[in-house]
């Protein structure tokens, strides 16, 4: 207590927002590929060595293919095939860890960067490209994979997620004890998004109704050019405590920890214990998007430091050192990645442009007479040029 009576400086208690994770960071696999213990979270308990190896190989494959999607899309943007692309380079572990912790009945509300989660949920990566190419605004059917459309207005989806979770409560699929039935929602957002009123309101609604939602924040240290310190002066996961539900910081570059923590948080939600805030502490290795130039606002050695924490490299070391995967496996994944890359390149270029008149479709469930008139007028106008050329 200081004389002031308002207690110590909270930054002293909680530590600064940014300190390479800090002691409270949940980690199960070090950057060097060493397994470490954590008092509360563990990975692989009860799994046979074979099953454990298979699971970790699965993570490696997911992350490798996710990264390839990202690399290909970035290249496609450079070649003018995409208008823009939001890169996830460096965030593969956070997304695959979270994505693989989901059950089929769980529902995802993503931002515009959740390509790895989409992959885990079974969304065809080609469909992700449509939005960035400008041929649609999200080509997949959310109900097919329980994976919502990308949301571009920062934070808006966290309220949708909370409402969806309130719907699950009313459907009686929370806390029944039936593992096939109990469901939860995961809301993805970034460190910058944590400043939006909507995100904080979603915390209030989720806490007030004890909704089964996991707030999964990928703190990649940056909101375009603004560092995390601009949004919070204490570790972000602490935000949740003020709303009355738990927050936890996990090493977002550690797929095992990201999986274990998200899995536990989702389980809490499914069991009816309410919301949890998971801060996946990671780093945006690339630009904000392909139109951004990070050299204007951040130091490259910062990036270099984080390179050493690469989420995929550490899993590869872990697999190899413990003979959990042979060269054949790595070659197969590499080949699969090449094939995926090829499919994306070809598929992207083949994505058809929408018909001009399609813009009048789906404004409403059924086209209004007003719009029919507008569409027909425009159609006639377009035809008037047919002759011209």
């Amino acid at each position: 207590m200081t004389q002031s009576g308002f207690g110590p400086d909270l930054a002293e208690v909680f530590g600064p927002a940014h300190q390479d994770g800090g002691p409270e960071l949940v980690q199960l696999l070090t950057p060097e590929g060493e397994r470490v213990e954590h008092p509360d979270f563990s990975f692989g308990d009860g799994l046979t060595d074979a099953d454990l190896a298979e699971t970790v190989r699965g993570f490696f494959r997911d992350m490798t293919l996710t990264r390839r999607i990202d690399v290909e899309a970035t290249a496609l943007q450079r070649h003018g095939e995409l208008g823009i692309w939001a890169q996830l380079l460096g965030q593969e572990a956070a997304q695959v860890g979270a994505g693989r912790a989901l059950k089929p009945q769980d529902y995802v509300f993503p931002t515009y960067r959740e390509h790895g989660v989409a992959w885990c949920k079974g969304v065809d990566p080609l469909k992700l490209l449509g939005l960035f190419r400008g041929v649609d605004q999200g080509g997949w059917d959310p109900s097919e994979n329980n994976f919502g459309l990308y949301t571009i207005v920062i934070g808006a989806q966290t309220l949708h997620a909370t409402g969806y979770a309130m719907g699950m409560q009313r459907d009686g699929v929370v806390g029944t004890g039936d593992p096939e039935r109990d469901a939860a929602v995961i809301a993805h957002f970034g460190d910058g998004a944590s400043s939006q009123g909507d995100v904080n309101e979603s915390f209030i609604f989720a806490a007030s109704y004890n909704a089964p939602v996991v707030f999964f924040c990928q703190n990649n240290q940056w909101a375009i050019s603004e560092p995390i310190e601009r949004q919070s002066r204490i570790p972000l996961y602490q935000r949740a405590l003020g709303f009355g539900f738990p927050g936890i910081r996990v090493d977002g570059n550690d797929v095992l920890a990201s999986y274990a923590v998200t899995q536990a948080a989702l389980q809490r939600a499914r069991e009816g214990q309410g919301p949890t805030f998971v801060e996946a502490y990671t780093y945006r290795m690339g630009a904000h998007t392909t139109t951004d130039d990070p050299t204007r606002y951040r130091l490259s050695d910062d990036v270099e430091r984080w390179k050493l924490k690469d989420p995929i490299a550490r899993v590869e070391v872990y697999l190899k050192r413990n003979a959990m995967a042979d060269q054949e496996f790595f070659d197969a994944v590499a080949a699969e990645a090449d094939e995926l890359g090829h499919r994306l390149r070809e598929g992207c270029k083949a994505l058809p442009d929408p018909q001009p008149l399609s813009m009048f479709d789906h404004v409403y469930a059924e086209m209004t007479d007003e719009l029919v008139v507008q569409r027909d007028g425009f159609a006639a106008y377009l035809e008037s040029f047919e002759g011209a050329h």
Partner: protein
Amino acid sequence: MAAPEANATQKVTLAKALNMGLRQAMEDDPKVLLMGEDVGKLGGVFRITDGLQKDFGEDRVIDSPLAESGIVGTGIGMALRGYRPVVEIQFDGFVYPAYDQIVCQVAKMCFRSQGKTPLPMVIRIPFGGGIGAVEHHSESPEAQFAHTPGLKVVACSNPVDGYWMIQQAIAHPDPVIFLEPKRQYHADKAELDETATPDPLFSSRLVRQGGDVTVLAYGPTVKTALKAAEAASNEGTSLEVIDLRTLSPLDMGKVYESVRKTGRAVVTHEAHVNLGMGSELASRITEECFYSLEAPVLRVGGFDTPYPPSRIEEDFLPDLDRVLDAVDRTLTF
């Protein structure tokens, strides 16, 4: 199900009619949920949801935290989960914290998903002035919503329409901004026959026949227009009054028909004249009935000032005399 025979017809206020309509909708569809500030035990500050939480439970009539963006945003999530949320915005002036969720999410969800996730949701807004309230309690935000593709906007003007339109809006697959003229809530009673067949939701209605000037109104100004027509008839002028009922989409058929007949039109609403519904109606009428018009379409609305202190709100609001003044101006143009 309420047994229609039991109470075939009864005299009810708009507030009561809306309450009955909501109750009927909840009985007809278990997916209908109500949410908003004080809609539960209190029954809403206007008592529109009176008794509904008691009868349908806290899971279906939900008191929300004090946050409009949260109300609409979580409502969207419920709709995506298959529910039919009907959210109440306590007063027109408090819809703006939810504006982003309404115009960027509610309005665009169906289009964004190419129809895969339509968003059936009703946003109830008590609107308009004349109740002697303080700032932000007497606004008319309709034009802003009507300007937003993806939203549908309707306004009821009487108890019978209130009863039917709220049920139709809830059953409709698109999001509907449902405007309730709060000044009328407890004003006049009307005979409600629950066994009748209502007009389609998105249709305007000719409420008084006349030959000299067409007067277009909706919500609170329908009553004003009808009073004006009554007064005018005493002076030998016959006004044709149309209750627009739907503001987006607009149902212009009857309007054009009427104006082609009268050659003159006056639009009246409480919203500011500048870029109010009147500007769109005047533009469309002029485009469609150019050669039938004897005079430009005149607009009688709230002035282009913020809503004033209540002691002078009746000067701000269009009234019988200002409508008649416009009628005279168009007749003597």
